[in-house]
Structure formats: C-alpha cells, structure tokens
C-alpha cells in the first residue's frame, strides 16, 4: 500500500513539474499553428530546397568535412596523450596528493561541455579549427583520463612486480609489465570517444571553431538556405557513415 502511495506521489510530482515547465516558459505552442505563422515556417522550410550542388560549393563542403574529421582525430589523439599522463597520477601511482589533485583536474576538464571549452578557446587561440581541436582535447582528456585510470587500477600487478623483482627499473617495468595489459582497453576507449567527437566537432563551429558547423552558421546568417541544406546533408551523411562503420567494426572485432 505504502509503495503504491509513494509511486502515486512521485507521479503527481512529475506531472506537476511538467505543467510548471510549460507555464514557466509561457510557450505559445498553439500560436505556432495560428494566423500566418504556419505559412511563414513552411516558406522558410521551402527556401532550403533544392540544396545547392555546384561543384565549387561541394568542394568547399568536402574541405569542411575533412576539417571536421581532422579536428576530431587530432583532438582525440591529444586527449589520449594527456589522459594517459594524468591517469598515472589519478591511479595513485605517484602519491596520494597527486592522486586527489589530478582527479579534481580530470573532473573539472570533463564537466565543462565541449561547446563552452570551444567558446573559451576561441578567445585563447583565435577563430578557426585549432580552437575546436583544443576544445575537444580538453574535454576528452577529462573523460579518457578517468577511464584510463580505472583500467590501470584494474590491471594485474604481477607482471610489473616480477620485472621489478628481476631488477628492472620502474619505467621499464611499467612499459613492459603494465602497458601491454592496459593498451587494448586504452585504444578501445579512445576509438569510442573519437566516434563521439566526430559528431561534436561538426557542431563546435557554431562558436567559431571551424569545420562544418562554422559553414552552417555562416550560411544561415547570410540567408543562404540552399547552401546550408547541403551542409546539413553532409553532416547527416557523415554521422550515418560513422555509425555504420563503427557498427561494422564492432561486429568484426567484438
């Protein structure tokens, strides 16, 4: 009985929150279907068609897509390097203080979204793809650092200990005793994040950080809807291709 009452209570709380949200926003949803606004929206939607397909524009799109790919790839690589370095501290291999400090840093890096990092990096490095690369690298370093540290903590210590007992130095013991164990996991995490980052890199350009996103933002601001449509199509194709490729790879390798 009490469990049922509790469920009822939570459900009514959720419904109250829903109503409060709509009231607070004061959204005039029905207004979207009144007067001439449906026609205006329809004519705006129609202005996107047909998408521009001049060879000149298509080659620019290809260049933008390549830029997006490069931003995500280099960003993820930098993040993997930084994450690997930080994970050594975060896994507690270099002392307690270093451990809690690096965990704090990783949390901070991770909890600021990529888009906010991008807006900040545009200030630090100027407009362009380099800012996007840094933004991706900073956020992803936080994510990968934590995952890498967890992998390090869970890996067996016996191989490295055996090397140490046989007289190897700490660095050699790590490189030949620990690294081979965690490497497959580290690579898998990095590839998975790269997949996410391709999608993210496509929209980072909204704050001026290069790639397809910047092209979309600029064309929409200049009211060149047919060109914007081509960019959107390119984004969709890229996302679908990455999805299909990763599903295929997972089926093959997993």
């Amino acid at each position: 009985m009490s469990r049922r009452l509790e469920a009822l209570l939570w459900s009514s709380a959720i419904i109250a929150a829903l109503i409060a949200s709509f009231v607070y926003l004061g959204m005039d949803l029905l207004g979207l279907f009144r007067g001439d606004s449906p026609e205006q929206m329809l004519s705006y939607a129609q202005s996107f068609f047909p998408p521009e397909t001049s060879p000149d524009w298509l080659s620019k799109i290809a260049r933008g897509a390549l830029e997006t790919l490069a931003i995500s790839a280099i960003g993820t690589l930098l993040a993997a390097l930084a994450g690997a370095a930080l994970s050594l501290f975060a896994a507690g291999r270099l002392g307690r203080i270093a451990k809690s400090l690096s965990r704090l840093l990783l949390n901070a890096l991770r909890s600021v979204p990529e888009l906010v990092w991008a807006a900040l990096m545009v200030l630090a490095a100027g407009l362009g793809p380099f800012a996007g690369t840094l933004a991706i690298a900073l956020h992803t370093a936080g994510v990968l650092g934590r995952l890498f540290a967890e992998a390090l903590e869970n890996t067996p210590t016996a191989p490295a200990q055996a090397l140490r007992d046989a007289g190897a130095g700490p660095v050699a013991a790590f490189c030949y005793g620990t690294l081979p164990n965690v490497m497959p996991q580290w690579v898998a995490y990095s590839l998975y994040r790269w997949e996410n980052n391709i999608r993210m890199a496509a929209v980072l350009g909204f704050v001026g950080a290069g790639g397809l996103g910047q092209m979309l933002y600029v064309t929409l601001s200049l009211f060149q809807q047919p060109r914007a449509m081509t960019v959107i199509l390119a984004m969709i194709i890229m996302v679908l291709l990455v999805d299909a490729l990763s599903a295929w790879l997972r089926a093959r390798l997993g």
Partner: protein
Amino acid sequence: MLLASPAAASRDPAALPRLFITVLAVAVLWPGLVITEFAPATLVDPRNLDVFSRFLAGFWPPETSPEFLALLGKATLETLAMATAGLALALLLAIPLSLLASRALSVSALLTGRPSRWASAARYPVRLLLILLRSIPEIVWALLFVRAVGLGPTAGVLAIAITYSGMLGKVYAEIYESVDQRPARALMQAGSSRLAAFFYGVLPAAAQELMSYTIYRWECAVRASVIMGFVGAGGLGQMIDLSIRMFAGGEVVSILLTFLVLVLLADQLSTLLRRRLA
C-alpha cells in the same frame, strides 16, 4: 632507466615494428595537423595571451551580486523547464512512432513467427523517419528553429522534442521487442486488438525499463539544454555566451559553477526517481 645500454635496446624484439607503426601514424596524422592549423605558438602569442590572461584574471572572485544571482536563478529554471517540456513533447511523438516501428505487435508474425515481408516494408519508412529525426544534432535544430520561431526557449524546446523523439522512439520500439512476446501474442490470437495487446501484454513487462530510459534521457536533455543557448535558445547557455563575449570572467565562473550543480542535481534526481519508480 628504460634502456640500460645500446645492447639492451637491441634485445627488444618488438622495437622495429613499433618504430614502423609510429612513423606510419605520424605520416598519416601530419595532414591532420596542417588542416587543423595546429600551432600551439598562437596560445602564447602576446596579443592572444594578453586578452586571455586579462579574462582569466577576472575569474576570481565569482560574481555574486543579487541582481546577477536573480538572473542566474531565472536562467537555471528556464533550462530545467526547457528540458522537461522538450522531453514531454518528444514523448507525444515518440510513443505513436515506436508503436508503428516495433515488430512486437505484428499480426503477420503470429502464424510464422516472423513478420511478413510487406509488413516489414511498411515499418521501414517509420524507422527511417526515426533515424532522420535523431541523426541531426539537437543544437542544429535549435539553430534552425531560432531563425524560424525567433530567439528564446521555444526554439530549444522544439529542438529537444525533435531529436529526442527519434532517440526515444527507436529505443522504445526495441524495448517492446525485448520483453516476453508470449502474452501479447496470446491476446492477439484470442482476438484482442493490437492496442489492447500492447496495454495488457507488453506494457506491464516493459514499463520499468521504459521509465528508467525516459528518466535517463531527461538527464541528457538537461545537459543538452544548457548548451542550447549558444545559438540563442535561452537558458544558461545564452548567459554564458554573453558573459564570454563581454569578457566578464567572474560571471563565467558563477554560471559554470551553477551548471555543475545543476548537472549533479539532475544526476541525483534521476538516480532517485529510477530507484523509486522502476
């Protein structure tokens, strides 16, 4: 030391392949560095450094004037309301689409165990629509809606509604298919309508998982609506965008801290709700 002597180095049998892979990786990545205009030197360029260090210097102390905090509170509520309203609208679209796309309520599958080819072909357009809805990132929809319906949270709500209806519809359809199919089949074989078979055969078994996934998505929607404002769709994102443009470091820190607390609270609430309701 890693390698005690040149003689020890030659004993690593994997050294040559590793060197080869490294050289190959650098050769492949080099164009990437060129395309991304990779130049760490720009970070320490005196002009950029001056601007950014002045910005960073403003970070402390965080802005805590009452007017600003009132504004911040309003934006936080707006962000939460955007996520909640967007998800509610997404449900309106996702539930019918998931019923259409799911194979769980197939009548033609009653006889052979598999839906007939025609029925699968009829479901295909719905699945395609779901893919299309979710393959455009929500912030792109927000950018488009800001131009169609004007600045403000309405654009953000519509953007969340569209993207999340695609995600929810797909996963709901899969959840219907993952539960025990026998109750629904028995009902349909006994002559009940598909909707009745869904309500009495599928929903009781799937309700927990549906609830839990929906709450998880609400949490994602909160994160998404925070950044929605960067394209002008209201909430915390719009505030942070403005503050960055005005080089108001203290405000940026206050907003970021609020954002952290909000995400943390949404996470806690989502865990609590899932435990209580699921």
